[in-house]
């Protein structure tokens, strides 16, 4: 038996309980979570040998100029293999990690700053984007994360900033080019102030002007800055001061954008938006106002120190009261299932068809969110007749194939047993086979929720 706090720490804050988690967390669940904040999470060993976004994007830019179809095809295949390798490494790390709270936060922030494979060109580089632009900052400052995202080639390509050109810049005048306001708008609406924020169309336009010149090297001029790297290009940067959110930004060049991003990160609306999303993720689909205020205050008072914000989330009393308020996303279900099935040794995974293709049919193709808003985080978006049936079919198949050395009742004991309903317990105990026993555990409401 373990406490309700242990259940919530390992399942809601972590990525799904197993024997290892429970034995470490049960002594002091909150302390177990807090300790994860100070540990190094920046380079998981499963990621050794993965390509960087620079390498992957350089490849993509070069491939554009290759004429021979066979060569093109070969390179595309290599890119696909690299993506698959990174995807698998990511899943293995999520299953094996000793810092599931940190990994959950990587997923949260990477979804907040979504970059999606709907733009095929950057697709293979998105796992690298997550590791380069998001992962190092989850316990750093929000402002730094925002600036790192704004400079990442994947984001600049995904939201079209590489083709936004100041109309009065040298390049703009010579080539009669103009702005593309996509990145500026989504930055304000989705990543910082929120759609309810107090900004106007002219703020969007001016912010787009400020961000002109934040671009990616396409044809390298020298070895030091290869294709696929971020660069600030003053020749396409809209000259002159800009007014944004009632303030004048008189800096020239890149500093103008950096100062604007800092200003946006400091806005109370930004604190409110981030707090709302975090509380929705860790408490309830309908975030309680008091909890949002508390997190928002910590965010503002610490100037967006995400280690402090993460500690404040652990301290939220309302997060520890009720079990099972959140439905797991398909990705969370898959990760927690394999965490539960995992024995002592390295994790063994089934064929790809039963991993990423299955996630797609459950409604969540990894790194392929339908829009820059990312994946939803509320029950009604994940529980639908078709997607639930896909979850059950997947669980059934995984349980048939599982070679876990543990008995179903052991797995039950180390995941959800103390908080499963009597009926669930009875059905699992009465399962006709080992496989069905496993499948019933993973299908049960207590396991589908966190």
């Amino acid at each position, binding site marked *: 038996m373990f406490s309700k706090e242990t259940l919530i720490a390992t399942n809601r804050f972590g990525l799904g309980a197993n024997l290892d988690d429970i034995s470490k967390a049960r002594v002091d669940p909150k302390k177990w979570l807090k300790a994860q904040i100070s540990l190094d999470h920046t380079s998981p060993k499963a990621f050794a040998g993965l390509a960087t976004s620079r390498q992957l994007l350089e490849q993509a830019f070069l491939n554009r100029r290759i004429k021979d179809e066979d060569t093109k095809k070969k390179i595309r295949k290599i890119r696909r293999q690299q993506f698959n390798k990174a995807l698998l490494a990511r899943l293995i790390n999520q299953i094996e990690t000793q810092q599931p709270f940190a990994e959950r936060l990587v997923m949260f922030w990477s979804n907040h700053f979504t970059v999606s494979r709907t733009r095929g060109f950057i697709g293979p580089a998105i796992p690298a984007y997550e590791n380069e632009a998001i992962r190092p900052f989850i316990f750093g400052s929000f402002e730094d994360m925002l600036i790192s995202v704004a400079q990442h080639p994947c984001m600049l390509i995904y939201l079209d900033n590489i083709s936004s050109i100041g109309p009065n810049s040298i390049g703009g005048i010579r080539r009669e080019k103009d702005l593309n306001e*996509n990145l500026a708008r989504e930055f304000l609406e989705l990543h910082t102030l929120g759609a309810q924020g107090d900004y106007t169309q002219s703020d969007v336009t001016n912010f787009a002007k400020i961000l002109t010149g934040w671009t990616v090297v396409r044809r390298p001029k020298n070895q030091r800055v290869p294709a696929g790297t971020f660069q600030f290009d003053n020749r396409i940067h809209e000259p002159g001061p800009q007014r944004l959110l009632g303030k004048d930004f008189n800096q020239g060049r890149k500093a103008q954008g950096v100062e604007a991003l800092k200003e946006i990160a400091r806005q109370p609306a930004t604190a409110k938006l981030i707090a709302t999303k975090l509380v929705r993720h860790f408490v309830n689909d309908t975030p309680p106002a008091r909890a949002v205020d508390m997190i928002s205050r910590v965010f503002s008072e610490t100037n967006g120190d995400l280690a402090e914000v993460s500690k404040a989330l652990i301290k939220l009393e309302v997060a520890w009261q009720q079990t099972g308020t959140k439905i797991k996303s398909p990705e969370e279900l898959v990760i927690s299932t394999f965490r539960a099935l995992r024995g002592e040794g390295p994790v063994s995974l089934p064929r790809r068809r039963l991993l990423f293709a299955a996630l797609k049919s459950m409604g969540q193709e990894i790194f392929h969110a339908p829009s820059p808003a990312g994946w939803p985080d509320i029950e009604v978006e994940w529980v639908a007749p078709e997607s639930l049936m*896909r979850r059950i079919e997947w669980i059934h*198949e995984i349980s048939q194939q599982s070679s876990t050395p543990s008995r179903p009742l052991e797995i039950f004991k180390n995941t959800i047993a103390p908080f499963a309903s009597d009926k669930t317990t009875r059905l699992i105990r009465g399962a006709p086979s080992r496989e069905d026993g496993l499948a019933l555990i993973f299908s049960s409401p207590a396991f589908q929720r966190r």
Partner: protein
Amino acid sequence: MLTRRLFTKLSAAGLLSNAAASPVFAFAPTEKNLILINLKGAMDGLHALVPYADSDYRKLRPTLGLSGPGTKGGVLNLDGHFGLHPALQPLRALYFSKELLFIPAVSTQYRRRSHFEAQNMLQGGGASPYQQKTGWLNRAMIQMGMSPSRLGLSLGPTLPLIMQGRADVRMWSDSRLPQAGEDFLTRVGALYDDDPVLRKAFTQAQEDTASASMMSGMRLGNGRLELKTRAAVSILKENNGPRIAVIEAGGWDTHYAQERRLNKLFAELALAILLIKTELGESWKNTAVMVVSEFGRTAAENGSKGTDHGTGGLAILAGGSVKGGEIRGKWPGLSSRALLDNRDLAPANHLESVFKSTLIEHLGLSDSQVADHVFPDFESIPVITDLYQ
């Protein structure tokens, strides 16, 4: 695959909720079909229905603009002022056989330029974003009367807001996963007895698999419009099956390289509409296909051969039930005075009017049902009359 036998067994065992377990299949309350195609990402209406004779058009779109009728790659003339993008060529015949109409410069009441808020208003049918918690088509279906065989059909694994609400909706998506056995599913059903959310979804999924066996072999790829359309049509053809289908199609947010992308998307859209006509056969005469998007795009092209978020968009109605062959509504023009905020095609026509008209003229709801229960916030927005036969 869940068989009818198991379905009955589950019902008898009390494992399914009462409403869903009724063995009596009443007749659907209407023979009319409505297929709503939601183009997510904001379709550039000015690139589909091109005001080629408008003197400002080429000035606003020096590189993206299409040339006039009769020129290479030029538009296909409709009425001397508007022309059709060549990739939409199959729709031209429907227009001249009076089975298709366009409503340009159309928009919901939403005036900011966020996809997500705009889609929320388009689907929720509220006066402001996130105000309505259910979808307007779902509220309309409740007014049409409950039926054991559900009226609504949604394609894809998750349910869009427009279909969310009290009326249950049929769903279809593909799966390559092997099906779980009957005995196992019965046990899962029992697991969900005490979890209302999971129980409801599970019960509905059971019923759907009971009659969707003919769809096996069809694969729903990454939002391919053709496959979704084929699946929708084959379910709509069931006797007493659903009558109202919602299909979502993504990829319309053309901030860059619009020409190439819309060539492909327009061709897919035209094919889907034609497919509905061919596959529905006789019931095409009772059918309306409504194509909408959350808003239009900027009148002028942007710096990357694309367009940014705008306001006035385009709605297309097709079907035997439609009074086609016309371009309906007001046309505000493209002069800088006429543009909204000096950038967007003005929202001269209300999308809510089109929705209301569809519910009243096509699906037979009464004015007061629509005003009181479906669009309570839009009493003052008039119906566009004579859109339907």
